[in-house]
């Protein structure tokens, strides 16, 4: 694949003059969104074309699993613990007078599994891993390493994108389950030791089990996979389309993270609706 195909603008990529005139009617921001969506989906298709090469890229896959999964675990753990804790605290405080504090286990459990677990894991993925991916690929593009790969007839999608996609699809469920579990335990600890809640862990988890089933966790895992795939694809695409110098690398990282965060929240609504 040529560099131009990675980075061409819609009007400059050999589009027929009629299409070019039609595109010229569209407002620029809409054009950018359409171009970004198209090039990201194209990157996905081009990467999947190299799927048979994945077994012999096992080393890269493991390296990316380490970067995407293992090194993200501590921050996911810390944040999930406090999110579970604050959920228990807020619901315990609000429910103290109304009399629903016995449902704190179910509330924390469902909220973490169906919503906050996958969303927080994806947000942290975008901030920590997405920014690193965008910076690395943008820097490789600007300093012609991507061009060097192409002249060596090594498709960048095969070497730079595919192992990351496989790794994020493998590690997002791990991160999400970890976020769920740590959040539940955070909620349990707060529920036990906060004087105006004082719910024993046994009854907290009994309530959680009563109102939850595996479908709730699965729901969250599906969302996590969609978010993870989106974040890595968007960040790879923006990185590989960077042109210019150090300032453009920084701009690409910002754009990659902001786009990822917006997409996580927009997709969250639609995937939640679709899974209901």
């Amino acid at each position, binding site marked *: *694949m*040529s*560099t*131009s195909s990675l980075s061409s603008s819609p009007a400059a990529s*050999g589009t027929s003059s009629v299409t070019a005139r039609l595109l010229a009617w569209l407002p620029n921001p809409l054009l950018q969104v359409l171009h970004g969506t198209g090039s990201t989906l194209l990157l996905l298709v081009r990467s999947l074309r190299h799927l048979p090469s994945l077994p012999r890229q096992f080393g890269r896959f493991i390296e990316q699993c380490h970067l995407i999964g293992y090194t993200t675990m501590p921050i996911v753990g810390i944040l999930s613990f406090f999110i579970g804790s604050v959920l228990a605290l807020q619901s315990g405080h609000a429910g103290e007078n109304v009399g629903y504090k016995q449902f704190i286990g179910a509330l924390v459990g469902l909220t973490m599994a169906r919503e906050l677990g996958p969303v927080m894991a994806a947000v942290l993925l975008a901030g920590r891993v997405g920014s690193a991916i965008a910076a690395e690929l943008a*820097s*490789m593009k600007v*300093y*012609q*390493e991507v*061009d*060097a790969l*192409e*002249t*060596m*007839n*090594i498709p960048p999608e095969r*070497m730079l994108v595919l192992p990351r996609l496989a790794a994020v699809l493998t590690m997002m469920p791990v991160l999400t389950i970890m976020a769920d579990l740590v959040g539940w335990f955070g909620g349990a600890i707060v529920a036990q030791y906060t004087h105006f809640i004082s719910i024993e862990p046994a009854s907290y988890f009994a309530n959680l089990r009563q109102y939850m089933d595996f479908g709730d966790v699965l729901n969250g895992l599906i969302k996590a996979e969609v978010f993870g795939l989106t974040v890595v694809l968007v960040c790879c695409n923006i990185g590989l389309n960077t042109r210019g110098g150090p300032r453009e690398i920084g701009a690409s990282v910002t754009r990659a993270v902001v786009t990822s965060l917006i997409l996580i929240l927009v997709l969250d609504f639609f995937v939640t609706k679709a899974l209901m």
Partner: protein
Amino acid sequence: MPAANSNSPLPGAAPAVGVKVEGLAKRFGTFEVLRGVSFTVQPGEIFVLMGPSGSGKSVLLKHLVGLERPSAGRTLVAGHDGADPATRERVRMALVFQAGALFNSLSVYDNLALYPREHRLGDEAAIRDRVMRALQILSLENAVHKLPAELSGGMKKRVAIARALVMEPQLLLYDEPTSELDPVMSATITEIIATLRQRYQVTSIVVSHDRDLALSIADRVGILMGGELVFLGPPSDLRQPTDPRVADFLNPRIDLEHPRFKHLET
């Protein structure tokens, strides 16, 4: 380890290829970088493309390896269209980038081993032989475990040439191989380019500002100015150029009374 100083082509090397550039034009927006450039490079020839900064030399080179698509005209490498990605599968072409474009996260060894590993050209022992031979040719054995960030400018250029050599190319393209180097290192790189052609009969296209390089090793020289080829011929013709633009480019006179920069177009 195989002898590095044999005069035979690299093992597995295919014969050198010819290059044809036909009416090549390239436009970035409204800016015309190349305006109908045409020339031919014979197999095994060293062709040096010179010209002032911004005259489109590097852009032309990128067209040959398919990194840019022409606005008009075409490039042919061994008869295959340079813009067609399949040409890179049919013809082994290597481009030595101006800044090296070494993979910064990989050691010198891994930089060189990437191509044979990705294309599965033998087991790890065979790849090691191939890499070490290329490093030996460029006298870089001591740099094998270093990262690109630990190398000097001259070493980076030599590693970039070694990485290209590992590909056993039929066409070797150099983008400003002597820029930012001291005169001795420039001479060394010039000698390397000539030696590689002499030993391995590889077709070489060198984009450079370096007059000494062009006059000493080129079989033919092209001079590109404002996107047009204003000179094409043997280097001997450059000693007494008839075109005043070429004469001024090759022997610029420093005139403090009428400084050139005051007449430059913005």
